[in-house]
Structures are given as C-alpha cells and as structure tokens.
C-alpha cells in the first residue's frame, strides 16, 4: 500500500538568491482564513484613520500677484504651465513644479484680466482678454523689448485685437484657429483676422462666461446675467438650446470624457450637471457650499469636479454624487474666484481674492513620488477594504468628519434651518390644499424656470 504524507522541499518555497522575490503560495479556502470579516473590518478602520491622519491637502501657495486672481487657464499640452490673470491687469505664467513665475507682464491689460485661454496646438501661446476691450495674444518665448514710454523692457503681445465692449471671458477652439469671447454678445474670432467672424446672441444681457466643448468641438455654452444658459452650434452659427435658471450661472465646464455633459456653478450655492440632449432638468445637483459658487472645473478623467466658492472654500465633488468628497480651506484664503484641476488630475489649483494661487492635492491623503510595488498593492488593498466597510457608522464617522471654519459651520446651520422651514411651510400648504394640486417638484428640476431647444 502506498501512503502519501506531506513532504515539502524548502527549495520550492524559499527564494534562491537575496535579489529574488519571495515565493508566494495562496489558498483561498475560507477555513484557512478564520474570522476574516472581523480582521478586514479592523483593517478598514485602521485604513480610514490613516487616511485622515495623512490628509494634508495643502502643498503651497504661489505668491506674486498684487491684486486678487480672477482668471486662470491650464495648458492641455504642458502639465507644468499655469496662466493667471489678476485684478490689476497683470498676467503671469507659472511653473507648477517649481512653484515660480517664469513669464510675467505687469500691465497686460488696463484693469481686470477677465479671461485667459491657451492655444491648444502651440505650447507657448495664450490669449488674454480684459475689461479694457482688448484681446491680446502672447508668446512666452518672445523676449521682452523696451518701449518708447518706459526704459524697462517688457513683453509685448504678438497680436492685439480690439473689441467694442469690455470682455468677460474667452475660450479657444480645440482644432481650428478660432476663439470665442463674450461681452454682451458672443464673438467668434479667427486668429488671423482683426474683426470677429461671427457674432452670436440671444437676449441682450451681459454674458459672463463662454466655454467651447473640447470633444464635440463646434458646440459652445454661454451663461449670462439674465440667468440663461445658452448652447450654440458654430457650424450653423445658431443657438441649440436655452435654459432659464432661478439664479445666474457663474461658470460652465464641459465633461472631457462625455461630450454631451456639462456642469455649471450657480449663484444659489449649488452646482448643476446637464445633459445637453435633455435640458428640461439637470442630471445632478451638487450641494454643500454656503455661498455662491464662482468657478467649476472637471478633472481630466471626468469623474470629479472642483468648485471655488465665495464662502472661502474649495470643494471636490464626485461627479455622480450630490455632496462633496472633500473641502479645503485655509485661514488666510479669501473669496475663491477660480479653481482648476491640473491635467494629471492629481492636483487642484485655486486663485483667490487675497492674490495667492494655492496648490492642493486632489486626494488629500495621497503622496507623490515613486512607490514600491508592495506599497502600491498595500494602498490598493487598504482603499478597497475601506470602501467595503465605509457604510459602517464607526468608519463613516472617521471618514466624514471635517473641521470647518466657524463662520461656515454657522452658515451651514442657519442655511439648514432656513431650508427646513421652507420645506415645512410647503408641506403645510400642501396638506391644506386640494390633493394633487401641489405636485412635488424634484430637486433636479426645481431651479429650472424654463427650457427651450431646437
């Protein structure tokens, strides 16, 4: 009779040389992993605590601007570059890795620099617009020249275009040599011509922002002080759709991955995501800010959004969720007017009233730098386990807790009281009116007054 017993040769299980990797043998039989759930839960809790311990989102501030920063643009081809324009007409180009200015024009515009945009096919060129009715095209590589007026040598624009009104925003076409500006009308300019080639308008109020779709390249979205969001098609030079909101929209951003999705930053503290094919209701409402949202930007992955608000905070939203994933603030940061995701979707840049540009981590507890395979796999495992048990009260509490400035906490509280009271009142009226006469309007359609599309 042949009897087999366990007999292991260490050569099969121990690495031969020091430089070899350790040999791994797995057996996923649950009997060999007793009390797996309890152990996983403990790891999840530890991982949640570690995440909050390492959550240090602030990297540094880029100082230099004397006035507040009201416009910023990132370069789709160059990860390192960031363009910023301030209230006193200064334009700077920053190297984010060095946190230093390497191109600077002190009086680029007479007054506020209201818009900046990069030219996608050239790394060094960008366009700025200002309240002084000028559009200027700059080249970073051009050396400064001394003018007749001052002996100090200064950069001069490559091209200057003259408009009839003060400009509020600018955006460049992804493929063609076209760019769009907005004042009381939207003008489409050819870079090689001094006059706009097309003017688009629907209504007569001031248009605050214009954004060209970077995927479906001939679509552009505008928002105006008359509370409208209008979509135009450049091919037919005609509007496609119009939505009237209860309050004005401050900024628009197109989803880089889904061409028909765009999100807006609204005066009513909320952000709305729209599907341009069906504009009678928004697809998502993002709440949490306690003051007007000034700017919004999609991460290049299209999965997350960063918002800048008048309440002196920046929030990071999951694009599919209704509440923010994280909130960033510092003691010295004033009203935030612009916020952008960097092109690697790892960092967030914000420009505020206090004249500083701040650099943040998009994931507060993440760290840059090369990681060993073991570290990466360990981090992956920990985040997986954390997500698995994130519904548990103990872990959720650790993950959700944020210390906010006192005024924001107070504002939050009062806002909640006000909204609750409004809700209660509505319920009371509904109770005492004819059944069905007061239908419940979904939150996603509540702030939309009217919508038309062609």
């Amino acid at each position, binding site marked *: 009779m042949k009897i087999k017993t*366990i007999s292991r040769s260490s050569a099969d299980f121990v690495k031969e040389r020091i430089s070899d990797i350790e040999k791994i043998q797995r*057996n996923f039989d649950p009997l*060999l*992993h007793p*009390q797996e759930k*309890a152990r996983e*839960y403990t*790891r999840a809790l530890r991982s949640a605590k570690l995440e909050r311990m390492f959550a240090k989102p602030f990297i540094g501030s880029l100082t230099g601007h004397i006035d507040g920063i009201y416009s910023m643009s990132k370069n789709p081809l160059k990860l390192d570059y960031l363009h910023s324009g301030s209230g006193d007409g200064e334009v700077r180009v920053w190297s984010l890795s060095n946190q230093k200015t390497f191109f600077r024009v002190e009086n680029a515009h007479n007054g506020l620099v209201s818009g900046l945009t990069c030219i996608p096919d050239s790394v060094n060129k960008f366009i700025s617009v200002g309240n002084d009715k000028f559009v200027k095209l700059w080249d970073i590589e051009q050396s400064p020249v001394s003018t007749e007026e001052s002996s100090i040598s200064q950069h001069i624009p490559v091209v200057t275009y003259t408009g009839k009104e003060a400009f509020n925003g600018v955006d460049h076409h992804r493929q063609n040599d076209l760019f769009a500006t907005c004042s009381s009308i939207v003008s489409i300019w050819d870079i090689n011509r001094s006059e706009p080639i097309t003017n688009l308008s629907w209504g007569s109020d001031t248009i605050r922002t214009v954004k060209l779709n970077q995927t479906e390249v001939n679509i552009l979205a505008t928002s105006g002080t008359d509370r409208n969001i209008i979509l135009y098609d450049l091919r037919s030079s005609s509007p496609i759709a119009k939505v009237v909101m209860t309050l004005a929209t401050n900024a628009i951003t197109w989803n880089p991955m889904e061409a028909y999705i765009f999100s807006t930053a609204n005066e009513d503290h909320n952000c709305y995501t729209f599907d341009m094919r069906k504009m009678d209701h928004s697809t998502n409402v993002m709440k949490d800010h306690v003051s007007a949202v000034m700017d919004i930007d999609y991460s290049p992955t299209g999965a997350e959004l960063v918002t800048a608000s008048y309440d002196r905070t920046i929030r990071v939203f999951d694009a599919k969720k209704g509440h923010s994933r994280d909130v960033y603030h510092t003691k010295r940061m004033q009203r935030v007017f612009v916020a952008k995701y960097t092109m690697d979707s790892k960092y967030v840049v914000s420009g505020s009233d206090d004249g500083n540009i701040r650099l943040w981590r998009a994931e507060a507890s993440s760290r840059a730098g090369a990681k060993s395979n073991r570290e990466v796999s360990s981090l992956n495992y920990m985040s997986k386990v954390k997500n698995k048990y994130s519904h*548990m009260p103990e872990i959720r509490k650790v993950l959700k807790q944020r210390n906010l400035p006192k005024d924001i906490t107070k504002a939050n509280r009062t806002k909640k009281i006000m909204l609750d009271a409004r809700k209660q009142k509505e319920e009371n009226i509904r109770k005492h009116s004819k059944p069905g006469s007061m239908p419940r309007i979904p939150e996603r359609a509540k702030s939309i007054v009217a919508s038309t599309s062609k």
Partner: protein
Amino acid sequence: MESSTSKTLQINLDKVKSYDMTKKKNLRPKKFKKTPAVANAVEEKSEYEKQLESKMLKYQRNENLSTKNVKSKNERSLVNKNIEISQMLAKKAARAEILKTEQTGFDLTLKDFGPYSINYSRNGKSGAEVHCLRKMIETQAMDFLPFHYLLTSIGNQGILRYQDTSTGQIVAEYKTHFGPCKALATSEYNSIQHLGHTNGNVTLWSPNSSEPLVKMLCHKGPVNSIAIDKSGTYMATSGLDGQMRIWDIRKYQVLHSYHTFTPATSLDISQLGMLAVGHGPHATLWKDAIKTKAQSPYLSHLISGSDITAVSFVPYEDILGIGHSTGISSIIVPGSGEPNFDTYEANPFETKKQRSEKEIHSLLDKLQPEMITLDPSLIGVLADQKTPAQILAEKKEVLTIALKSKTDIKNKKRGKNSAAKRMLRKKQKNVIDATKLSTLIKKVYVDKQTLIKKVYVDKQTLIKKVYVDKQTLIKKVYVDKQTLIKKVYVDKQTLIKKVYVDKQTLIKKVYVDKQTLIKKVYVDKQTLIKKVYVDKQILTKHILIKLD
C-alpha cells in the same frame, strides 16, 4: 516512511526552557540540603543532560581561556564572564542540535518531570516569548487567541481569565461557578472558549459576558477534554464516563457517541478533520469519525509504560505530537495536515524578516475583545433599528421568562451569615451587577404584579359590597313602597267608606232635615195660611162688620 532531508522537527522551545529553569532551581544549595531525593536526581544525570554534555563538547570555544595567569581582578572577572558566555552559547547550540534532528518522527525521553502537554504555533513553526503572568494562578489549561492577542486560562479556581498579551491587561475575569476545570478549547472559527467541567457540562464563553453563552450537558461524569474542528461546526468531547461524543455546535446536539476503553484524556482535530484520541498509553487516530459514525480507528499508537496527557497536530504537517508521562513523542499521521498553505495567513517557511514584519502587522490588525461573538459573520452588518414597541415587547418577554424560572428567585439561606460575608455584602451594597440587576427587576415586577392584584381584589370587593348595598337598599325601598302603597290603599278605602257613610248619613240627615224642614215649612205655611185665612176671615168679617 522516509521524509525529505529538509524536513525539520520544530516544537515549542518553551517546554525545554522551563525544564532548564526547574533544573536551576533544584541546583540551589538550600534545597539541596533539605531534600536528598532531589539531590540524588541531580547526581544521577538524566539522559537528556548526558546527551547535552556530549553535544556541548562540539560547540566549545575559547578553551584556552583561564583565569590562572590573570592578575588584575577586573580582567579576571572579564575573562570569567567570557567563559560563562561561551558555555551558554555552546549549551544553546547543543540544545538546538538535539531538537533539530533530521528525522520527523521522534521520541524525547524526559522521564523526570512528566507528564507533558503540547501546543503548536499557527504555522507550525517554533518560537515563543516568555512573560511572567502573576495573575494566572493554579492554571490547568491555557490557550492563545492569535488575532485578539488574548491568553485565556482556567485552573483550579474555576476562574476564566482573558489577558491581553500585547498590553498585559486582564481583559476579563469570570467565575465559572463550576469548580476546578482543566478542559479548555478555543474555536478557531469564532474565538469562543469552550470549558469542560467536572459535572459533565460544557460551557461556551466570550469575554463580553459574565455568564456562559451556552451551557450544555455533555457527559455523565467530568469532562476530560474538548476539541473543536476548524470550521467551528463540530466539537468532540471526552469524559470520565468512558464516552467520546461528537457534537454539532450549530444545533448543540450530539451526532455520534463512541465508547473508549479507558477514559480519553486528550483530543485534537487536525486541519483535514482527523481526530486524535489519547487514552491510557494509546493514541488512536480516527479518520472519518466526525461526519460519519466510524467503525474502527485509522491508526493506533502505543507508548507502553506511559500515560498520554496531550495529543496535538502540527498545522500544515502530517505530524502528531504526543505528550506523555515519560516525555514527548512525535509521530507521522498521513493525511492529517493541510498540504496547501497560504503564505499571507501562515507561512511555515517564513523568514526572520517576514516574521518580525508579521508581528507588527498582526498587532496593527489586533481585534478587539468585543468582536468575539458566537456568529462572526455579524461583524460588518448594521443592526436592525428596533421600534420602541419591539423593545418593550422584548423586555416583557425577558421578564416573563425570569418570572417563570423559580430557581433564580430562590434565596440561598444556608451559610449566609458569616461575619466576613456580612462585611462583604455591606461593601458590595452599592455595586449592582447583572445578576443583582435582574433580581431587582424581577422583584420590582413581582411587587407591581401583587400590587395590581391587590388593587384589583380591593376593587372587586368594593364593587360587590356596593352592589349588595344597592340591592338591599332597593329591596328595602321596594318593600317600604309596597307597605306604603298598601297602607295608603287601606287608608283610602276606609276613608272612602267613611266618606261614603258620612255622605250617606249626611244625605240622610240632610234629607231628614229637609223633610222636617219641608214639614215644618209646610206646617208653618199651613199655619200661616190658616192664620192668614183666619186673619183674612177676621179681617173680612171685621170689614164686613164695618161695612155693615
């Protein structure tokens, strides 16, 4: 059966260390004088010592070191120290060589201090640290919960203790109230402690409850040993009643009963479900005795002239360790160990670095004692939110059950009034533990019930009284009324009669009167007429006369 050369024997070095320590104790001169028996034992060197000495020669170094020519006192002490160290190292190396024999199965004859009990680490590798646990007194059985870092112990006091070995804290300490206990087993599945008591009971304990979670009567005599399989489904118990029973812990029901010729002293279930039974000098191994009723053992091993106290399987190996009165034996049992290990769970080939790293990771992943439950799958699940009505209903149910069980309410009178106990009672007056609380609740409930009953009875009697009073009153009133009515009727009749009679007499009288009056009037009238006639006649006569 030849095993591969790489195979090494690994047992817990603890036993050997403790052996040494006792040896040192015996060498103390004071004891030497007092107990000549021990002295003899030391003079006659044990086989192990002889073996050790012969092996030590191989590892001796610094043979030239001697203090002969060293003049300075300091230097001499230094040299002495070096000699001591080299001796110690040689001894260590020799000891290691004795243990790391090439063969897998072996016999270690340690006659002096038997019997020996055995336990293996999780991955079957050796290695141990020594703590001094002063609170674990008269310990008979111990076990370690590797995920919780808890050392559990029970002994002659019958107190189950949980000590956290990472912090040194006693986490829980519960009196079992079952007397001395030496059968302890831990379920790997849920870390619940199974205790076997002298009255045949097996109790299940967690550090979160001062009462046993489950109490099951398993044997008609003291429970000798318990073993639990890896899945936490089956439990094997053996008792002094000569029985070995297999239990389904999910249902707390017996599956099979086996008769052992001599009471089994030790049980163990291997990773693949093989059952080892130690009884007398025999170790029997049963292959499919748990899930099915086996007819005959798979293997039987006799260690003649000894008494087996412990059987224990080596994880991930086909080896069974047997601790007996004459030493420790290790035998090969094919098909007992799990052949495929998981490196991340327990690695028999782990390196020194992996081990130290694992130590830190397992400390970080240390489970809290609160996580020990009968059903480990409950962790990570949200509890159902109970409505107030449900909570109330549950409380009521508990109370009714408590009220039904008379034994709990019974007050133990015997031996209550010793002075010490009275003082203790006084001291403990302010302390309300779970049992006190439950009796208190019961008492309050009973008081309430009696009060309610009393009130009810009072109410009923009151109602009855009122009712009776009312009835008598009604009757009296009725009777009164009737008599009154009768009286009134009689009165009325007599009155009527009287009135009638009166009336009649009156009528008669009136009639008579009338008649007399009429008569009188008539008479008067007649007389008057007569008179008038007479007068008239007279008058006429007179007139006539006059006229005349």
